[in-house]
């Protein structure tokens, strides 16, 4: 792993999946810190609180789609209203077990989504995320 992120979010209602993700992330030293949220709203709240502090913001948000109360797309709709600095700082990666083409299409249309990854997460997929995010930031720079 060439690059280690400082902070990532893991937004997923499934405890086991969050466990798998954090385990993989730490195992392959993908990020120093992984904040877990079992509800999308909680993640939004956190971001809302810290939006004026770019240093505290996560570099990557790993987002599940199928979640109770607020699903992944609803989260994205809300995230859309955040300041540009926040959106620039935090790249959203969809990580889902859905193989519904509608979902992948919708994600592709949303400008905020940096990558669409099927579960389960593994080393290859982490590499892909890394490439995408760094590529995107490089492009942005």
């Amino acid at each position: 792993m060439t690059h280690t992120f400082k902070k990532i979010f893991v937004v997923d209602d499934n405890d086991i999946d969050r466990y798998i993700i954090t385990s993989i992330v730490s195992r392959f030293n993908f990020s120093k810190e992984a904040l877990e949220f079992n509800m999308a709203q909680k993640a939004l709240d956190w971001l809302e609180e810290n939006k004026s502090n770019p240093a505290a913001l996560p570099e990557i948000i790993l987002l599940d789609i199928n979640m109770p109360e607020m699903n992944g797309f609803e989260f994205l709709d809300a995230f859309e209203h955040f300041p540009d600095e926040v959106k620039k700082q935090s790249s959203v990666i969809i990580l889902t077990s859905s193989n519904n083409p509608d979902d992948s299409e919708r994600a592709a249309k949303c400008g905020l989504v940096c990558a669409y990854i099927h579960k389960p997460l593994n080393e290859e997929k982490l590499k892909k995320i890394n490439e995408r995010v760094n590529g995107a930031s490089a492009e942005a720079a």
Partner: protein
Amino acid sequence: MSSATLTDLLRKLLHFKIMSLRIKIWLSILVLVLLFTSNSVVIYLEMDDNKSKNEELSEKIVPTVNFLYDLRRNVSERTSLISDWVNNPGNQIAKEKLIDLHSESKNTFLEIGRTADNYVDPSWRDSIINLSHLFMNMSSSEYQIMSTLVLPEDYKDQRKKNHSLAYLEFELLPVSNLLNHKINSYIRYTEAWRNAQGKTIRESSDLITELTVMLILEVLILGFVLSFLVERILIKPIIEVKNTLDKLKNGIIIKKHVKRKDEIGAIQSAVNGLADRVDEMSAFALQIGQRNFDHTFEPLSNHDKLGHALLSMRSDLKKNISRLEETQRIAGTGYLEYNPATNRITCSDIIWEILDLEKEISEPTLTDFLKVCSSEGTLNFQIQLRNCLKHNSKFELTLPIKSYKSKEKILSLSGRHIITADDMVGKMVIVVQDITERKQAENELKEAHDQMEAFFKNINDVFFSYDIASKKLLQISEACKEVYGYSKEDFQNNFKLIEDVVAEEDKVHFLEKKMELHIGNPVIIEYRIRQKSGAVKWVETKITPSFDSIGKIIRLDGITSDISERKESEEALNKTNNDLRKSNAELDKFVYSVSHDLRAPLTSMQGIVELTEMQTAEELTGKHMNMLQKSIRKLDSFISDILNYSRNARLDIRRETVDFKEMLADISRELQYMDGHDSALVIDNTVHAKSDFYSDNNRLRIVLSNLISNSIRYKDSGKENPFVTVSVTANERFAEIVVEDNGIGIKKEHHENVFNMFYRVSEKSSGSGLGLYIVKETIEKMNGEISIDSVPGVGTKVYVNIPNLYLQ
């Protein structure tokens, strides 16, 4: 004047007729003047000569003669007096008188000298002088006597007396006698000369008189001749020209042969030219009158008003006649004139066309015309004709004929007997019209009408025709009884009924379609009606508008069908469709929920298994984890298959741009972790796209993914270079996809079953048995085709053909 011109003039004189009038007049005047002048000169000369002779007569001869007479008287008087003087002494008176005379004799002598001076002629002067000498001798003798015998005593003296007597006797008297004799001779001579002179003068006067008379006669004759000539060469031709012109004025064209070459000749030529022109024009007008419009005629100039007027008259007439003929031809109507006196007919060309006969008989008889009629028709026609002529009335007749080309035709004849004051027999004027087509059309129309009537009676739909202006129902078919429950009479008695039967809530549909009708589009309206019984029915009306020539809508024609049954089934179908659509959506949602809910724990399991695999050092645990992972993948793939099958069955085909290269790359990437895929296997993708390709991306992906995974799954492990090649050739109509491998292959007997649901070739098969079934179903949904060609141990080739949705 040269001799040439002179000869020329002479020649002209000889050819008097060809001379110009002006020269003729000048020549006549010249002749007259010459004649007059020559005559006058002769007269003048003659008169002058006369005058000098007269003068001579009065100045010389007459005084001389008178003097001679005086002298003779004087001499004889003196002779007698002197005798008396001698013989008679007492006569004093005679003596005195003699003395006087004597004293006078000096004067007389002078007188003689003066008379002699008058004559230049010397002989004559000498004679006169001789005379004066004699006179002087006598006078001196007298004086001797007188002086001798003065006193009475002298007389008594005898000597004296004798002397005197002797004087007297021998001297005086002889002198006196000689003188007398001479005087008498002179008188005679002079008188003869005077007479001769007088005669000459008289003769001259006579000549003058004759000349004058001649002159007058000449003038008279010449004047007569001239006036005759003038009359002959001037007035007569002018009158002739005038007469010609008069005749021209009255329309009689006469031409005179022009012999003359003078001005009159020119006038005659001009009049002839005019006559020619009038003749030509009248010939042209005659040609026009005879309907010959091809006669060559050119106006003389731009100012030739008559010529131009004739030409424009001709073109107008031509136009009118061609219009008339065209009108007759179009109307199929001709004009026929029958003269009962001659039994001949004259008719317009169209009649011959109607009879299919060449116009070869110039004046056909009625029989020629009647040849085309049947015997019955001929009879009818003749009866009508006879009645008409007899009663001076008119007739109308429909005459069926068989034309000269054996075509059956129907003619309509309208005749009239026309009598004029100068034609008491009169003639029949008949207008003939070919009404074959009209009759035919009438018959056809009636037939069509009957057919329609029959058709309407047997059909369940209601046909109607509605007049917009009068708001009247023109027609409605019998079927209205079936559809509306109202009879045809009900509708015809109450024009508003057709509107009233429309259900109140559906009347709005008619208002909505009004505009469509007015722009000429036929409309279809579905609405409810209330039948006579009160029952409500669904009907459908198709209305077609008709317009008049100015585009105003005038009539609506329509068909109303009872669609109650259709409407019911439509409604039922709609309901089913809606329900189905609802359940489909629900099912889709359900399938997804289920698949997600099934897959979510599966992926979790997979994640845990992968984690465990990574973390365990025990070989057996690793082996078990691997087996667990295989089972999970199989289950996952099975769930995917079910999901795909379900979606393919329910979802509509989508039309999207297909990027085969990207799609194949994606699939290859996805499949690289599947079981059986190892580094030895080569997947080769070739794409030839000649045009943009449109299809359903998801379905295409399912198809390709399944086919490629099958090739991977059933690869031949015994072969050194296992491969899968996918080649895509796309054009604007379709895409041909060939998936080829060198796998284990399929036996021939399985080929037809491999696409069946849950069919598996052998127990070795590791798939769900749904893969190829889903592929086939999906391809069929996309209107494509699939076929398989496989040899066990060699490999398998799958051919797929998918249509390009480019054009849709």
